[in-house]
């Protein structure tokens, strides 16, 4: 799976739908990947994917709503555009509540679909930026020593008591040593202030 470019993932158990949609969207310049079932998509899924999902509602085995539910629960949210041959109102309401971009009834106008895809990709892009920041913060946090990590955790968990004395007392080491550690931390995290450090640490937590 390519993760550099925004990808449109098509999940539909109808081969004809998959192929025609691939053609149509590829012609418009979208990167398209297809899966013949929800399970197939889950199997291929990797963290850090960006793009959107064109999801058929009625499928044998796990249906569209169930897949959406699973992705949302696991925090692997990609924007979803539902396509369905039934157009049931209750199902569409449920899908929209769970964060779907739209619920299109088959057959749909390609222009409408394309518009929804672009909308979804914007959302995806925004989500992707946040994610990148978090990843970088995490990578930097991983370079810290155990003692340094301890100190960061104390600061993040209790931002109002961040003087060196307090930390030293809590860890039973000298305040001077704490000052030394703090300087190393800011350097490693490429942060200019403690506020910036806290921001990075919190961002990294979003990944999990």
């Amino acid at each position, binding site marked *: 799976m390519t993760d550099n470019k925004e990808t449109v993932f098509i999940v539909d158990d*109808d081969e*004809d*739908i998959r*192929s*025609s*949609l691939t*053609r*149509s969207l*590829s*012609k*418009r310049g979208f990167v398209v990947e297809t899966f013949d079932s929800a399970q197939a998509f889950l199997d291929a899924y990797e963290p850090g994917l960006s793009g959107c999902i064109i999801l058929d509602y*009625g499928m*044998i*085995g796990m*249906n569209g709503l169930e897949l959406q539910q699973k992705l949302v629960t696991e925090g692997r949210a990609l924007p979803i555009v539902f*396509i369905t*041959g*039934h157009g*049931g109102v*209750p*199902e569409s309401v449920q899908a929209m509540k769970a964060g779907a971009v739209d619920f299109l*009834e*088959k*057959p*749909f*106008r*390609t222009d409408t679909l394309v518009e929804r895809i672009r909308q979804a990709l914007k959302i995806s892009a925004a989500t992707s930026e946040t994610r990148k920041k978090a990843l970088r913060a995490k990578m930097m946090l991983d370079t810290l020593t155990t003692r340094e990590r301890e100190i960061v955790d104390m600061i993040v968990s209790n931002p109002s008591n961040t003087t060196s004395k307090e930390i030293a007392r809590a860890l039973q080491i000298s305040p001077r040593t704490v000052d030394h550690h703090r300087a190393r931390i800011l350097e490693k995290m490429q942060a200019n202030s403690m506020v910036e450090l806290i921001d990075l640490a919190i961002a990294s937590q979003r990944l999990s």
Partner: protein
Amino acid sequence: MKTSLGLVLAFCLAGLQFVAITIIMSSSYVTSERVLLNHARSLLRDVGVNTIAHSKGFLEPAKGAAELAARIAENRIIASDNRELLEQLLFQQLQTAPHLAGLFYGDQRGNFVYVKHSEEPAPFRSKIISRDGEDRETELIWRDHTYEPVSRIADPADTFDPRNRPWYLRAQTERTTVWTDPYIFFSSQNPGITIAVPVISDDGDVQGVVGVDIEISELSEFLSELKIGENGTALIVNQNGDVIAHPKPSLLRAVNTDGTFRFAGIGEIEDQIAQAAFGDLSRMDQVLIDTERYAEFSHRGADYVSTIMPTMSTELPWTIAVYAPEADFIGAIVQNRTRNIWIAALVSVLTGVVGLFLANYINRPVRAFAVRAALISQGEVDPAAPMPRTYKELERANTALTEEIMQRKTTEREYGQTFELSSRGMVQISAETGALIRVNSKFASIMGYEVEELLERNVADFLAPEDPALFDQIVDETLESGDASIEQKCVRKDGQSVWLRVNAIMIRDNHGKPLHIVATINDITKTRNTQKQIEKLNRDLSHLARGELLGQMAAGLAHELNQPLTAITQNADAALMTAGENKVQNEELNQILRDLDQQAHRAADIIKALRSFARKGEEWKTPFDLDALIDQTLHLVQAEATEHGVSIAVALDDLPRVLGIRIQIAQVIVNLLRNAIEAMAESDSTDRSVRITASVEKGFVKVSVDDTGPGVDPGLDLFSQFETSKADGMGLGLSICRSIIEAGGGRMWHEAGDPSGARFCFTVPVADK
């Protein structure tokens, strides 16, 4: 009518002694009266005999005096023509017999000497008539007791001639002593008689006649002194019917028209009782009685007895008549009798009361037994309780009764328990009126009433207004065949309808007369309703299959059609894009591709319209019981299953209500069952069974239909249209089924059976609670 023992005893004891007393009383009544009346009769006769004797005794001296005087004259003791001597002789006679009124002597020449009692101026008076041929001289001389003359006068006007007098003529003719009939004396105006004796000379000629006047007032006095009971009366009647002696002498005299006196006849005397008693005598020519005559008679409300004695003698042809009030003889007895009756009545009452008490005493154990029997029969006394003191016969009856009652109570209790505890409703109905006699609590709960409320009601109260003939029908059927079984719609207390199955039997008495109906009642409302629901489902399914097949197909196939249409539009779009990449634009091709896209959308619109059209008659989704629906659908395919030897088993968890279009889900289930049955019908397998299971999974109810058929060819996608394993199948059934299930938010799929056969599953969402 049965009589009470107490009454019979009381009647016998009191009544019999009453009868006895009455008989004794009346017997003594009759006999004592008879005895007394006989006594009265003899008393009256005694009076008569007495009176006769007295009368004879009274008159005898007069006869003697007269005969003595005649013999003196006959024997010439005194010269009969010596009037001074004769006067003296008569004077002496009169003085010695003071009850004689007078003595006299008349001879053939017409001389007459008459001595009689007088008053003024001296106690005696003599009348002497001396004749010499035609010359006559009459002298009246008054004398005292010593025969000294006190006064003398001559009476020249006197014309009396003894020879013309009746007494003279009779004595002269008969030449023997004669008695005249009684008559009223001219001088004293008292009743009397004259006794005349002829004086016959030696040569046999009658020289003269001696006479004696005797007043018979004495007889009346005698009669008045007689004691004949209290108020009895005796009187003397002569042969002419004249009353010559009566206790009241004043009644004797009657006045003739010429101023002279005569005796009053028995028919005219002013003694009403005597008239009533003896008036008959006056109608006789001559009152001559041979034998004593006794009679009883009533006068003015009072009872009397009377006796007439035989005539005294030929010289004295008189009859003594006596009468007296009965009361004089039997009055005391009657009084006594009245007292006796009162005493008898009192005794009767007393003994009657004693008899009643005795009867009561005798009857008491019997009555106590009757009361006890009644109480036992009402259950207020334990039959085993000891019997109070009583008779041996009752003791035995009690034993028999107690056993009988115990037996009956046991039977009743068993029947009662059967009745009360029955799992069915039970009622006992009067055959005549239809009133409920007895009901059990089950029946009450079926009808929604309290047991007590039902007992005031009639069968007719429960019948649905449109069909009120239940009771008549039951009665007719039970009368005809002894039992009846019907189904009837009735109305509960709350107004709801309830269907009852009624099984009734008629209970009759020993004579076959219908007493009441006992019926068992089952509430078959639910069964009937289920039956009705099944029928409705079947109708609905048939209707669906026939009339709305197209609409249902459209709805079911919308998804299937939309898939290829989507592919067409996307392909058209892609083709248009591809065509746009060419340097030379073929506008005609572009138009074709746009038309292609357009037409695909048009097709989709048609499908949408068709689907919404089909939806018009559709029900909305509603919550319903899936297990009940499964149960009902089984009925629809049961005949088919039986025909092909397929058994159907059902295993359902405790299922919540689900949400969906009921009739469509029913169609899915029926379809799956039919498929299973048909699949096995074609196979040679001997094990032909279908198993339906249902369970709850994550907000859905999952239904599986397993069969033991040959299974499904793996190469076949049964859910696509027109794919079928059946020789005559259209390949639409499962496709439509899946559309229905998916339209309802569920899923439908196929699995391989375990260990063989096919398994079709679908899910239906659980209804929100």
